[in-house]
């Protein structure tokens, strides 16, 4: 694969990642957001594979495989299982209305492209416009965590932010070292497990959502 095709492909994948992000933000129901984040992780894995093919870095192949296996398959499956088990209203509980969130998201994307324009020196030629996309994904992931009330959707936001960090790392330094990447993914798995168990436990013992725990404030 020539570098030029790789750049083109990664730019295209960046567009797709942003599109899935918009889907996550605009999703009206929990399971849609989960599917969207799974799709995003698949695209991210493909981006990793493209970069691996272009640079010949064997670590990137491993990372791409792990990303697809864990973030695109295992974790969404876990989240969907939790959704099924607690059988709650599947609507997203938005703190900020969805349309408003989308407007803010647009502003954030513009901001990250504007900021990245001054960071030309950091960018690699091969990854093209990946840096602003990565920064935007990360900020939008945090925005999801801010604007949604349910613990499950906050978890989705965390995954999206993590995807953004991964993509940023790819943009500036061909991905983080393998050991760090594996560590980060383990963190995310652990977070998802803890969150899943907590949601189920709280549901089964006091019949309340995690978000209702704020009532306990003194």
């Amino acid at each position, binding site marked *: 694969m020539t570098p030029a095709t790789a750049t083109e492909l990664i730019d295209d994948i960046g567009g797709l990642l942003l599109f899935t992000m918009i889907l996550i933000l605009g999703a009206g129901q929990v399971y849609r957001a989960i599917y969207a984040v799974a799709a995003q992780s698949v695209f991210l894995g493909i981006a990793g594979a493209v970069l691996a093919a272009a640079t010949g870095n064997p670590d990137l192949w491993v990372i791409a495989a792990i990303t697809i296996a864990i973030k695109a398959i295992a974790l969404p499956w876990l989240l969907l299982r939790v959704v099924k088990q607690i059988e709650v209203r599947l609507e997203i509980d938005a*703190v900020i209305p969805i349309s408003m969130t989308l407007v803010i998201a647009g502003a*954030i994307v513009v*901001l990250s492209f504007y*900021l990245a324009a*001054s*960071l030309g020196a950091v960018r690699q030629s091969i990854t093209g416009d990946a840096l602003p996309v990565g920064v935007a994904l990360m*900020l939008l992931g*945090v*925005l999801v*965590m*801010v*604007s*949604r*009330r349910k613990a499950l959707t*906050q978890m989705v936001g965390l995954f999206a932010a993590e995807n953004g960090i991964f993509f940023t790392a790819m943009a500036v330094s061909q991905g983080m070292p393998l050991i760090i990447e594996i560590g980060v993914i383990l963190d995310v798995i652990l977070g998802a497990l803890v969150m899943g168990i907590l949601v189920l436990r709280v549901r089964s013992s006091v019949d309340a959502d995690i*978000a209702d725990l*704020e009532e*306990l*404030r003194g």
Partner: protein
Amino acid sequence: MSGGFASGALASLLAARWPRLAIRLGHLGVLVGAIAGGATAIDVLADPSAPALRIELPRLMPLAQLALRVDSLSAFFLLVISLVAAAAAIYGPAYLEAHGAMGRGRAGAHVLALGVFVGSMSLLCCAGDALSFLVLWEAMTLASYALVVSETHRDENVHAGLLYIVMAHIGTALIAFVFVTLAELGNGTDFDVLRTAGHGLPDGVRSGLFFAAFAGFGVKAGVVPLHVWLPHAHPAAPSHVSALMSGVMLKVAVYGMLRFAFDLLAPGGSPLPASWGWTVLALGTLSAVIGVLYALQQHDLKRLLAFHSVENVGIILMGSGLAMLLVHRGDSANRLATLALAAALLHTLNHASFKGLLFLGAGAVVCRTHVRNLEDLGGLARRMPWTSGLFLLGAVAISALPPLNGFVSEWMTFQALLGGGSQVGGGGGLFSVFAASMLALTGGLAAACFVKAFGATFLGRPRSVHAEAAIEVPRSMICGMLGLALACVALGVVPGYAMALLDGPTSSLVGGPGASAVVTARGPLVLSSVGGAGFGAAIFMPAIAILCVALGIAAWIMRAWPRRPARRSAPTWTCGFTPTSRFDYSATAFAKPLRLIFALLYRPRRQVERENPDSPYIIKRMRYHGDVVDLAETAVYHRFQNAITSVAGAIRARSTGRIHGYIGYVLITLLIVLLLFGKA
């Protein structure tokens, strides 16, 4: 020396099972340490020309070389500490056994804290680098905090301790800031390195650092706007610890100020910035007057003494401030600076001895009567003759009456201030003379205050059953007080010998001839100053002492002599009532005229409840309640406290407890930071 304190502290731990043994051993350790410290100090002071004693400690920490360094200034303060510590160590065991039912663990903890407290104070004065200074400073603060709250069954003690530790740490933070700044400039922590760094500073930075250090030490010393913790914390501790805190711990702060002003931050050989001296002089004057005015209105014996510490620190600062103003500004000014500094240092020693004596005396009263309120005492002179005599001696000394030591140092301060007035000239000179007049006012008010304190405590008739049942304290407690009383008399009658001790510190800080060359021109017994232009009135202190004794004998003879007319003793006519102790002049009544004069400052509150059930003209019972507020506490600290509370309330109202809310704050911060700094 440190071995004594350490062994005392450790012995207390080992002996924690036997409280009496723990207390005895612990105090014995402190005594041994104090004697060793005093011996070291005198050894250094006796030979002012010898180089400073320096002990390198083993490198315990990889960061810096710790060192102890005893120069003459350190040695002088070490002497002050050792004097009071020795007296307190003799006094302590009997006091603790008589006063408090000390439990097992508590006795051990108490003695441990005492050992750490005295030990860290002594070593603090000898610290030779910033790191050990700060560590010992903190150890001193924490140990004294532990002692303040050692009687935890009283809520006010816990409150006092909290106030103390918060304020003390604000002070520590400021001192640490100054040290760290200097250490960074000099790239080392040793005092020699810091001094070299300090000499080369630009004037603005130098003054900034000095004022930070002054504020930091001022909190500990109880300089007036920063004194609010002191009247709460000092009385809360056991009495011999109060004596140490009031008599000595404040002095350690003074040591810090002098060390910074004349040594570490001084621009080697050239005059100090004028703003330093004026600030210190003005705040010293303020502290002296305010301290004594509030002391007058206190009816808690130990609190009254604590306010007097504020006053006396003010007097010490007046001398130090004047010395800062005059140092290195010509030969005659320098001699005046030596006089002023000698006065300040001598007052440090004097105040330690008489305030220690007074606190120990107050402790003797408290341990026999278990009350501190002056209105519940009275008539103790007959029941506790030794205590009352020694307390009277201390009261005379603190009131700056000849022939005792308080007079000597205040007289020297007067001379320095008046001489400084003519030396500086202009508005500044006028202020210096004004400060002298304020010092006179302070002395007068202090005398009034101690007439009140002594009269209400020891004279008249007992006003409560506690006072009636009081008996003399054990011999060891009297011995402790007696030692300090002897120091008061000796320093008063033969001040010339004390001047010889001051030679080293004054000549090393100010330069030029030492204190004894400036102050005692004619032999060790005569107090005379050749400092100012035309000031040279000589006072032969023993003559004054003999005169006073002779006057006393004469008065006694005059009273005893004319026995010719038959004496008939009969009760005072009291309008048909049976005279009771409530007819006596009370402390509140004594202080009333001054409360009216200074009402603007005191903002007195009084509340009178009358019970007149049948007719408005027949009063069954009356209840009077009056108090004065500490203006600094209400006007500054309460406002500050309210501001903090309202800010905290606002933060609390903004904390939603929702996790996405908090993430939202993070996101907003992140975006703002990106906008501000993201554009390279």
